[in-house]
């Protein structure tokens, strides 16, 4: 097991700074997700942890050991790639055995390890096939097998599920979560998919422009987004962010320019203690268990998600209540969260 510490880690390509003075302490055995839009520096960060990209500035520690300049094959990390990256000239068994072969593990031991990994990932009937004879999900399981066969202390995953279809993605997601519980290794997982991040992570680092915008638990990120970027990146449908039209909580100083955020699901029937609002329903989109509404308030338009038994019809005027404590308030200039 290993804790991973990044201290002021920076990556520059010529004049472009991909990752800027990143400080991140990943705890031993933690499942850390780096989340952000493409080009935010999350994959670059992962590659620097792996040793596949040189670190321009800063220090990288595994536990107390400085590995900043260590080549990848000496770092003892395992990695799973979005593209699977299986060796096309080797069979499934040879792919999984390869890291052990390179370490000079005796053949009998390799065979045992490969068999046990294959069993765990349900690859046993496929061991003699080549990668081009496998489906996408099978290939990704082989890639996982190649990574776990070494029993590494650090596990790096670069969007491992992005190339799979939706159903497969769900089952692979729970497989990865189970693996984390079993292996108790440190996982660093890169994704742009907020659902993956929220379901898998112990903590999430939301990145944009090469900078960590917020580092917190999934609940913390969702409930207390540090700025408008984080607020709008997580949550589906997106949070409503408005300069005007939503009620300002009482504690916000009079005259201060703020952005008020309301999660679409943070609404209720108007009752005592809630701020009552009403607006004209412009669009109704049933989602099965819930219904998504587009609502025109005086001077603003918002999206809401309400239980389906509200039975809303287009064109009606809907009265609803919001809890001022559930509103998110951001400074209009800095876009940072302000709290009472």
């Amino acid at each position: 097991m290993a804790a991973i510490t990044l201290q002021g880690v920076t990556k520059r390509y010529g004049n472009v700074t991909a990752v800027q003075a990143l400080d991140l302490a990943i705890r031993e055995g933690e499942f850390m997700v780096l989340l952000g839009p493409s080009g935010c520096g999350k994959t670059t960060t992962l590659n620097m942890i792996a040793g596949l990209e040189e670190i321009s500035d800063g220090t990288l520690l595994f536990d107390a050991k400085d590995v900043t300049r260590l080549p990848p094959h000496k770092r003892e990390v395992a990695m799973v790639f979005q593209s699977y990256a299986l060796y096309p000239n080797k069979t499934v068994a040879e792919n999984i055995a390869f890291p052990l072969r390179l370490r000079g593990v005796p053949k009998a031991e390799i065979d045992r390890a490969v068999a046990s990994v294959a069993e765990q990932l349900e690859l046993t009937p496929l061991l003699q096939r080549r990668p081009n004879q496998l489906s996408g999900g099978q290939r990704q399981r082989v890639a996982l097998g190649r990574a776990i066969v070494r029993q590494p202390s650090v596990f790096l995953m670069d969007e491992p599920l992005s190339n799979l279809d939706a159903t497969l993605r769900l089952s692979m997601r729970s497989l990865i979560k189970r693996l984390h519980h079993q292996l108790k290794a440190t996982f660093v997982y890169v994704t742009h998919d907020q659902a993956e991040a929220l379901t898998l992570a112990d903590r999430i680092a939301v990145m944009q422009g090469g900078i960590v915008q917020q580092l917190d638990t999934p609940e913390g990120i969702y409930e207390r987004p540090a700025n408008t970027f984080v607020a709008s990146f997580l949550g589906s449908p997106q949070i409503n962010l408005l300069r005007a039209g939503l009620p300002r909580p009482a504690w916000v100083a009079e005259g201060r320019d703020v952005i008020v955020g309301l999660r679409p699901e943070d609404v209720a029937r108007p009752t005592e203690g809630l701020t009552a609002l009403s607006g004209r329903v412009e669009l109704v989109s049933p989602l099965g268990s819930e219904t998504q509404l587009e609502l025109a308030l005086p001077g603003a338009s918002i999206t809401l998600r309400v239980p389906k038994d509200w039975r809303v019809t287009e064109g009606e005027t809907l009265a609803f209540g919001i809890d001022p404590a559930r509103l998110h308030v951001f400074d209009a200039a800095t876009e940072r969260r302000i709290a009472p």
Partner: protein
Amino acid sequence: MARRLLLALFSALFVLYVAGPVLWLLSSSLQMESEITAVPPNWLPPHPGLHNFTAIFTAGDSAEYANRGIAGFLPSGAANLLPALYNSLKVGLWVAGLNLLFSLTAAYAIAVIDFKGRRATLYTVLATRVIPDIALVVPLFLVIRNLGLINSIGALVVTYLAVTVPFTIFILISYFEGIPRDLYRASRIDGCGHWGALRHVYLPLSLPALVAALMFAFLTSWNEFLFALVLTQNAAAQTLPIIIAGFVMDFTTSFSFVNAAGVIAILPPVLLAIIFQRYIVSGLTAGAVKG
């Protein structure tokens, strides 16, 4: 219909154009001098026989002028033909082998390792091939002479490598760049250093390019005339093209002998092509990464 006929006609003409000389070479190598020079020509040997080949393989013992009786006569350099064949083979194999070794490592470094001046290195290597060979002959001769390498196999090997290595590097780089980068990354993570990545990823997946490079280097060396003419002056290091060219520069030309020598000269490259053609297959990286 007419289209297909025309297509067939022109295909046949093209085949004849390409294969005609080779077929004539084969046919005439089995004929006697008088049959080759007959008018109209004998397209097929009237009395096919291996006498010309026998003459080549016995030329060393009896390199006398005009001692072949009715079959024809021997050119003055006939005894040098077999040593030249051996020289050509030696030079060709050395060039093919060393070319691969140097180009492979250089191409890997340029294609895979991100070092400062990588583009500049590639351009410098390629720029050496912009200068025509004829401009280099005299300076090269002086260098080789000062090194004391004139009339040696080594002189030819070194010179030919200077021709083949830049091209081979270029070919291999473009091939290497087509191999998914994630495979390299995966191999580094799995525990390979640069040698390991070269051996386990780039070598097995670029087999067709390696075979092509091998053939290219061997053929370049096998066919080369200009440098061989200048850098070698006696039978110790002279290669086939020089010796065979000498036959037609003789005071009389023995077509039967020259043609038989020609057949022998094309055999090694043809054999090489037959042996290696099964490795020239595409689609080696199928299934490596998501397509």
